[in-house]
């Protein structure tokens, strides 16, 4: 057990490290046979907001033979004290060193957290490379980034592809058997390599062509599958969902009850990885959601409940669901929040009904400035939609609008970029056409642009990413072109998006770059506090790797991609046809309008059976 009491007076937000919150699971470590460290490679407030953590923490702790504890990345002030005093990385529940656990599982939510994964292993005193570990915990990882596990292939012992709650018990059962057997470490990895959805990178040999592309990826162990198929939950009603959450003392990013209403998205935006990897759309029934809401309100005491999904308006009985929920929440003064809504007449009325707190800001994500480019990315929202719904919203008292765009999308031209200020003017016209006494005051439109990062398993996985210079040029163009006095323009750091692009579509040669970057002090790369492009550049140089290879290059359809052995269930044929349709500016109907034959129906679940 580690003792950090002497550090707590000296660090920012000490409650990040003390644990003991309402809702934690207490077990006697001596009375379990498996200790599982759920590691989230970011600070407490971010990690505690993750739904996957909440689900797996409860699910794993339902096993009497296993104790699942939480581990987060210490902020730099704490890390410094820990290193100075040789205090290893510890869990919040028992303050046990991570090195003493049986398994440590990392949640990979974004590429820019990879350095934190490595830094956490280092802080735990665990050898960074999988091949160097002969004792101590097995290191596993899951989450959306595991769909291209290759950049962490040398570091992680095994990956879980797909939805963790579907497979974690099989892994733990196998571990329990293995531990009893007293067999070698390799034996455990061979056992789990047979489980569908589990990927053991060391069981595959990768060879390369002279131009640096992959020439082959072949299993070198008889237990390794040629293709690793993702695991999904078929029926969200019968699968486990926690009826209590840990309620942190300090405010976290999403400090509320999260009620997951469905998984997946019917829309098929061509840039969106979540839209592919979470296919098919599977809904939770209204009855189940109402009963979960009741239990969670009772157990947590939270003052807000948020309906989470990729696109809440696509829940088939949203109006009815909200009516049922209001009946429970109103007597307790609990607010209902609905992020990810498509704004239209129906949802505006609905928001009036459910939100007791008047929200003054409406958010739209047109993603692109012109209809042409929105057709390219299959983002089904028109200028008329936006005009009509903002007008209705302004009439209803709203006076500020937030717009999200991406720059650097495939086929983008200057005209598409300049479509962004045009769209702002359309919204401005709507506001000013309403008589002064009938509209709200302090009209603002906030525009944010992110830099497009082509993601694996999407129709755009073969596309080149814009260079940093090109991104910055487009940002400058927008800074000049957005001149409406009511408009405010924010943009993302292009350097970070570039690196995200490298690791999103990277191969296993990048493991060495990540380790080199960590040795130079790279960590919390998505936080601007520590980000240093200079350190990254020298890490790539040291490893003799040109990062442009991963971002600026157009890949051929027949190139072997580093993630080709990982299957989302969506066929490559479908992704190619979507990419071709994008070039022709043709849209694809959503899953409920018409099945486009993406291949996911083989899973026989959700929307494919409706």
């Amino acid at each position, binding site marked *: 057990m580690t003792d950090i009491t002497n550090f707590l007076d000296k660090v920012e937000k000490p409650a990040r490290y003390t644990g*003991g919150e309402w809702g934690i699971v207490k077990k006697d470590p001596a009375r379990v046979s498996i200790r599982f460290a759920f590691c989230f490679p970011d600070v407490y407030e971010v990690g505690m907001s993750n739904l996957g953590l909440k689900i797996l923490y409860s699910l794993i702790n339902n096993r009497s033979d296993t104790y699942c504890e939480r581990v987060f990345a210490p902020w730099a002030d704490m890390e410094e004290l820990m290193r100075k005093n040789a205090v290893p990385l510890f869990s919040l529940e028992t303050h046990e060193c991570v090195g003493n656990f049986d398994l440590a599982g990392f949640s990979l939510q974004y590429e820019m957290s990879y350095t934190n994964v490595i830094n956490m292993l280092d802080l735990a005193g665990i050898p960074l490379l999988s091949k160097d570990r002969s004792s101590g915990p097995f290191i596993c990882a899951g989450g959306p980034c595991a769909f291209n596990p290759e950049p962490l292939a040398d570091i992680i012992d095994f990956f879980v592809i797909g939805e963790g709650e579907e497979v974690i018990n099989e892994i733990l059962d196998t571990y329990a058997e293995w531990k009893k057997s007293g067999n070698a470490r390799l034996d455990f990895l061979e056992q789990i390599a047979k489980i569908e959805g589990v990927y053991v990178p060391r069981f595959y040999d990768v060879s390369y062509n002279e131009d640096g592309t992959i020439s082959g990826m072949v299993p070198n162990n008889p237990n390794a599958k040629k293709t690793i198929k993702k695991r999904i939950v078929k029926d969200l009603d019968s699968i486990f969902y926690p009826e209590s959450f840990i309620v942190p*003392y300090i405010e976290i990013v999403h400090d509320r009850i999260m009620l997951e209403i469905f998984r997946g998205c019917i829309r098929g935006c061509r840039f969106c990885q979540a839209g592919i990897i979470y296919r098919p759309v599977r809904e939770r029934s209204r009855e189940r959601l109402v009963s979960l809401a009741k239990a969670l309100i009772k157990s947590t*005491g939270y003052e807000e409940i948020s309906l989470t999904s990729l696109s809440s308006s696509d829940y088939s009985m949203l109006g009815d669901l909200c009516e049922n929920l209001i009946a429970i929440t109103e007597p307790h003064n609990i607010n209902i929040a609905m992020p990810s809504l498509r704004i239209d007449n129906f949802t505006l009325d609905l928001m009036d009904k459910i939100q007791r707190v008047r929200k003054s800001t409406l958010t739209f994500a047109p993603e692109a400035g012109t209809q042409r480019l929105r057709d390219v990315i299959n983002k089904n929202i028109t200028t008329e939609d936006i005009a009509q719904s903002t007008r209705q919203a302004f009439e209803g008292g709203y006076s500020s609008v937030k717009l999200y765009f991406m720059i650097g999308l495939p086929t983008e031209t200057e005209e598409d970029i300049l479509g962004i200020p045009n769209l702002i003017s359309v919204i401005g016209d709507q506001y000013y056409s309403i008589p002064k006494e009938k509209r709200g005051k302090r009209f603002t439109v906030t525009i944010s642009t992110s830099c497009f990062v082509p993601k694996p398993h999407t129709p755009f996985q073969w596309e080149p990413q814009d260079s940093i210079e090109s991104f910055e040029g487009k940002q400058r163009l927008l800074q000049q072109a957005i001149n409406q006095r009511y408009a405010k323009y924010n943009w993302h750091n292009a350097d970070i998006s570039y690196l995200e692009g490298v690791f999103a579509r990277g191969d296993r040669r990048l493991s060495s770059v990540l380790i080199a970057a960590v040795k130079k002090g790279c960590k919390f790369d998505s936080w601007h506090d520590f980000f240093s492009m200079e350190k990254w550049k020298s890490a790539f140089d040291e490893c003799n790797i040109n990062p442009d290879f991963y971002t600026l290059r157009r890949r051929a359809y027949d190139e072997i991609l580093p993630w080709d052995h990982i299957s989302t269930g969506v066929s490559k044929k479908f992704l190619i046809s979507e990419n071709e349709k994008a070039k022709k500016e043709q849209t694809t109907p959503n899953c409920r309008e018409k099945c486009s034959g993406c291949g996911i129906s083989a899973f026989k679940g959700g929307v494919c059976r409706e």
Partner: protein
Amino acid sequence: MNKLRLVFEKGEAARYIGHLDVMRTFVRALRRANVPVKYTEGFNPHAVLSFALPLGVGTTSECEIADITLKNKLPVSEIIEKTNLYLQEGSIKILSGEYTDKPMPVIEKAEYIIDIKNDGLLSRSDIENALSKKEILIDKKTKRQTKQINIAEHIFQIRILDMDDNRLKLQVIVSAGNTFNIKPQLVVSALEKTAHSLNPLSIAPHRVRFIFAR
């Protein structure tokens, strides 16, 4: 009026949470316990709840005061028993309560016991000398500015309760209240200025009682 005045403790498990965290924890525990707390009217209803004096991060207490207003009167013992069930052991615990119409009493002073772990050997004469100073100038931060004050004028009592080679336990009574408040940590910083053997590794203050204005 259904105003209930509660006295509660903030224990070791909650030492490092701040005042706003304590308030949130309180409201959520009351909701878990199904205590019929009254909410304000208006767009953003919140529980009718007020605290006598914020307690800082790093300090525990056995004398905190909070007023809550209820929709309907329930027996005090029932509320305390129910709510405590929904608070993590060792964190926050309601000790007593009574229905009252009186306004929140005005706090003038507070008594703390400060437990200090020291880096290196402590010298008794060194500490005693520091305690006897009539003037120790120290920077006190307020919301707007940093002001230099003579902290000795705001220390009404200070004595060594217990000490050994590297542990020091002090008892102090200092100015407290919503207009002028001396944090126990500031007293220790002031002592450090003159007592050279004092190099705290950790400072663990505990609020024992309030002294009210008459």
